[in-house]
């Protein structure tokens, strides 16, 4: 494979001559962009979008150039010193292969999202004032910049700062429609949970700093070499996991994504939660012992996230909420890949590591693509009918064919069905597991078989969920007036998504092109011994898959073409759907989302606690009046982990506020009590 990669690199090296900036130029350009972003406040309202698009393009191009430099192997690690005369301490942006990969992921989605935003934001121009737009665009730019800086910065304090800037800017993006109190509440709870996560990371870094004297990712290796790895790793894992949305740390995710505007939720769910994955990987690189324990922990948590995530997704009626839960599921899949990789490291099973890590990493890219695509289309649907409730949709495929096709592609990809990209990453993970089944010992084999079952179950559930989503939203008859009058959204919302589609299809059909660099990254970051043979065989398998997928597509085309001419020669007539003799059916008689999930709910009830709201018909009711049926499922983890303790503590705190009685003698009393307290504490040597 190395030879193949040489060739691969060779092709890129030829390109490289075009982008050869002197290093100082990089820094200067980057800083210029950073400072230009603030001018968005002074641009007239109508041009703000174009201005920020211009800046974004500049940043994307610049960072892509850097990634090219690194991925093409021209330099292993690219250091960019942002030292200004004004700033005493210089920030150093370090781009190694991992960072470069994530930058590529971020660039694609954020750019497409910006293009999509133009159409999406149009209706808001009359109602919102110029300031809110400035804030929105500024936050969007800074979300992007902070994300690429997160993957480039190694120093602990600076990392935390940009990490939090990321959270802050995304928060400002979420509350774009903050006139709605619920959205505002959601945004705030999101901000708080992000802050909590930040505190975890902060403490983890402080522990490292205390032990090694310096706070940075590079110091981790030193720390891990002579301290217990598991605890510190768990600190990091919780901190990053809150961002990534592993169950049970996911509680912010299904709330924030529906609240945000669609281009934002696309970016957030597509790439921002991946920053958590990046952090975990970055920490894992330097972990040295306790590997098996860590790997199993990650694996189990990810399995739970994957299965529960999709299980909860099925019962949602809010389209974007459903997608949000699917993000949890996909994070689970990525986590499974990473966990397997770690287990591979622990058992010197470098093949498992290679396939696991690469599967996870590639799924990061894939998920960013199709999830953003799905969110964009959910946004288009919302634009068309101004509701996110699936039960009010239906028959939209006739009204908005492009959106429907895009959504269909996204669904197929997210279900991991060939010939689309989702399959490739899942295949890599499967392959790793199946190949290592025969070599590992008893317990690991049980673990791995369990994972296989879980992964296949996830696949099945995903299909179940997306047949429901696509079928109920786009097929059948319209279920409400809104859906009847829907119109296809404007082209500037449609076309940007074809960029994403292109990537999805290319990864699906020409997977080798993307898997090779990923293999490269993994083998470079986690120094894996003698993996060349595995890599080569996997590459061959992938070529076979591409071939077979190609055949699949061709067969379909042939069949359809044949069918076309076949039907031409026969007579084709149209009529109503077969109603089993009952011809006066209405659109209400269709299968709804709820009924579609009915028998599933039967077995999933103990986990999901779906609640039904309905009145039964009493016996003495001869002519039953109108009945309504409503079913909802609430997130058990949110109740247990967030609501209950928070309410408890805040009630406790509120009790304190009786102290401000407004009576002087009480105020003096406090001084007394305090003196007494200090006296007692001192007397009993507590302080």
């Amino acid at each position, binding site marked *: 494979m190395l030879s193949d990669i040489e060739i691969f690199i060779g092709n890129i090296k030829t390109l490289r001559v075009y982008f050869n900036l002197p290093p100082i130029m990089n820094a200067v350009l980057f800083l210029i962009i950073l400072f230009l972003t603030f001018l968005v406040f002074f641009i007239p309202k109508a041009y703000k979008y174009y201005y920020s698009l211009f800046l974004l393009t500049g940043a994307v191009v610049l960072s892509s150039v850097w990634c090219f430099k690194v991925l093409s192997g021209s330099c292993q690690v690219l250091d960019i010193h942002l030292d200004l005369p004004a700033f005493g301490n210089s920030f150093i942006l370090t781009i190694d292969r991992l960072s470069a990969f994530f930058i590529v992921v971020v660039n694609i989605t954020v750019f497409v999202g910006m293009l999509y935003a133009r159409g999406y934001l149009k209706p808001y121009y009359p109602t919102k004032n110029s300031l809110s737009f400035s804030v929105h665009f500024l936050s969007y730019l800074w979300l992007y910049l902070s994300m690429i800086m997160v993957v480039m910065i190694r120093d602990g304090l600076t990392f935390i700062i940009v990490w939090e800037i990321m959270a802050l800017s995304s928060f400002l993006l979420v509350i774009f429609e903050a006139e709605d109190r619920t959205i505002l509440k959601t945004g705030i709870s999101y901000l708080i949970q992000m802050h909590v996560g930040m505190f975890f990371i902060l403490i983890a870094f402080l522990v490292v700093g205390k032990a090694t004297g310096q706070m940075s990712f590079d110091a981790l290796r030193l720390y891990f070499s002579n301290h217990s790895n598991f605890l510190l790793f768990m600190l990091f894992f919780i901190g990053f996991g809150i961002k990534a949305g592993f169950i049970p740390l996911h509680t912010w995710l299904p709330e924030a994504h529906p609240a945000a505007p669609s281009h934002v939720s696309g970016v957030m769910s597509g790439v921002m939660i991946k920053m958590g994955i990046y952090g975990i990987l970055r920490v894992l690189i330097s972990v040295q012992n306790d590997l098996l324990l860590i790997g199993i922990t990650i694996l189990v948590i990810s399995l739970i996230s994957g299965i529960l995530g999709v299980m909860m997704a099925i019962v949602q009626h809010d389209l974007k909420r459903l997608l949000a839960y699917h993000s949890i599921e996909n994070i689970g899949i990525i986590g499974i890949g990473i966990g397997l990789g770690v287990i591979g490291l622990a058992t010197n099973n470098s093949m498992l590591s290679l396939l696991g890590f690469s599967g996870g990493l590639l799924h990061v890219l894939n998920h960013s693509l199709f999830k953003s695509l799905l969110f964009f289309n959910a946004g288009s649907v919302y634009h068309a009918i101004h509701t996110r409730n699936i039960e009010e949709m239906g028959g939209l495929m006739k009204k908005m064919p492009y959106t429907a096709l895009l959504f269909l592609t996204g669904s197929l990809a997210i279900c991991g069905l060939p010939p689309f990209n989702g399959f490739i990453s899942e295949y890599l993970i499967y392959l790793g597991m199946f190949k290592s089944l025969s070599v590992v010992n008893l317990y690991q084999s049980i673990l791995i078989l369990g994972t296989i079952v879980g992964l296949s179950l996830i696949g099945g559930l995903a299909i179940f969920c997306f047949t429901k989503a696509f079928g109920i939203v786009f097929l059948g008859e319209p279920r409400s007036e809104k859906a009847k009058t829907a119109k296809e959204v404007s082209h500037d919302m449609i076309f940007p998504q074809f960029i994403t589609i292109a990537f999805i299809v290319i990864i699906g059909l020409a997977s080798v092109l993307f898997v090779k660099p990923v293999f490269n990254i993994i083998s470079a970051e986690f120094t894996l011994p003698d993996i060349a043979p595995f890599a080569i065989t996997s590459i061959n398998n992938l070529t076979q898959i591409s071939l077979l997928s190609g055949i699949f597509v061709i067969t379909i085309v042939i069949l359809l073409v044949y069918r076309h001419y076949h039907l031409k020669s026969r007579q084709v007539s149209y009529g109503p759907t077969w109603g089993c003799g009952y011809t006066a059916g209405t659109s209400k008689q269709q299968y709804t989302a709820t009924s579609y999930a009915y028998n599933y709910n039967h077995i999933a009830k103990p986990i999901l606690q779906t609640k039904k709201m309905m009145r039964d018909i009493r016996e003495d009711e001869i002519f039953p009046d109108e009945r309504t049926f409503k079913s909802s499922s609430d997130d058990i983890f949110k109740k247990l982990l967030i609501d209950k303790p928070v309410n408890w503590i805040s009630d406790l705190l509120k009790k304190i*506020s009786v102290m401000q009685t407004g009576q002087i003698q009480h105020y003096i009393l406090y001084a007394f009590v305090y003196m007494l307290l200090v006296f007692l504490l001192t007397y009993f040597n507590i302080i």
Partner: protein
Amino acid sequence: MSIAIVLLKNKTVTRIITIGFVLLHIWLTIHCWINLNKTELGYFTFSSLGVLLLAVLSLLTIPTVYHGFIYAKKDEAKKFNIYHSALIALMTFMTGAYLANGMTVLWIFVEATTLAVAALIYHDRSEMALEATWKYVFICSTGIAIAYLGILFLGFIYGRGDASNLSFASLANIINQANPLYLKIAFVFVLIGFSTKMGLFPMHTVTIDAHSVSPPPISALISTTLMNVGFLAIFRVYTLFASSSILPFMNSVLILSGLLSLLIAAGYMLKAKHLKRMLAYSSLENMGLVAIAVGAGGYGYYAALLLLVLHSLTKSSLFYQMGQLSRVLHSFKLDECGRYMKLYPAGALILLLGMICILAIPPSGLFITEFMIFKGLVLKDKWFVLIVAIILLCFVIYAMSTRFLHILFSNSRNGNDAIVPDVINPVESVSQFVLLGIVFTMCFYQPPFLVDLINQSIALLPK
């Protein structure tokens, strides 16, 4: 000078004199800065800490006076003049307190500030103002009396005729052979006494009441520079005793009152209904952090001073903004405020940025200080304090952001759609933007002179 204002009945003259005073003050600051650590008039030493806080003060004089002009525009000449004379007096006393080199002199100036503040709180002659003033004066003087006892205890351990003004320099020598019990009592008394000024638990209560009635520019001073005065007094004594055996005791006492302050602040903010009171509680929270920082020691000292400076800048700009907000929304009641984003965008931006700053969310400079505090705590293995503080901080953030953002975006519950806001020229908010801008820059870059000043002021303390 202030007396002159009282005598003269003319507004414009007052204005001129005030501006003259501001210029004078700035000149004084520069003067002190140039000859650092010199002693003048026997009672004043330009110690680096004093100069640092003095610089903050004279940075704030300009916007304070400016907004004061706007605020008191409609008042008749007498009120106007009293206001400004008291303002000048307050600033002078605070300056004196910053530069005082003896415990007694410091104490005198602190006591004097109470007078000036009382006059200012009472500016609008309402029942509430009267009540607030009464409480403020009463509690403050009680506190000051207690502090005075603390100083007397210092005197006891000292007890010799010469240098009877208890100058820090002369005290520093004999701390070691003193009876630690005396020191402890003295410290506790001083802490409790000056906590009235610093707005720290246990005597935080009156400052908060004062905020809800006093004119916004004055609140800006009360909750920033005046608090610095209180902190300075406590910190001087702390520095004095730091060399003695009771350092751990002092640390734990400070952490205790810091945590209690945080607790109370968090508790109140969850229920706060009055905007300025909420800001007052956030000052309480920040002072609690300062106390914890000093208690943590090590990095904490630096963090404490930096936090003090940045908090002064942020909080004052927020209070100036409150002044403008009251002109737009005609109310500080949270139920009656709303849609500020639409009514006065520039102000809304200030509120947003100010919120980010005061909550120490990066890229606010306060985050750096918070970070250093945690670092200090971790290095000292004070895990319990760390965790409790973090939890409380999260609640503070929740409470404060909820209220601010509702004011910014959502419609008020009682519906303020009817009100007609007077149009404010965004230029009036420039000063606030500048202050917040400074705070944001501090996150990435602290100018060397600042770092030097802080390091000099904590040079005596054990690392």
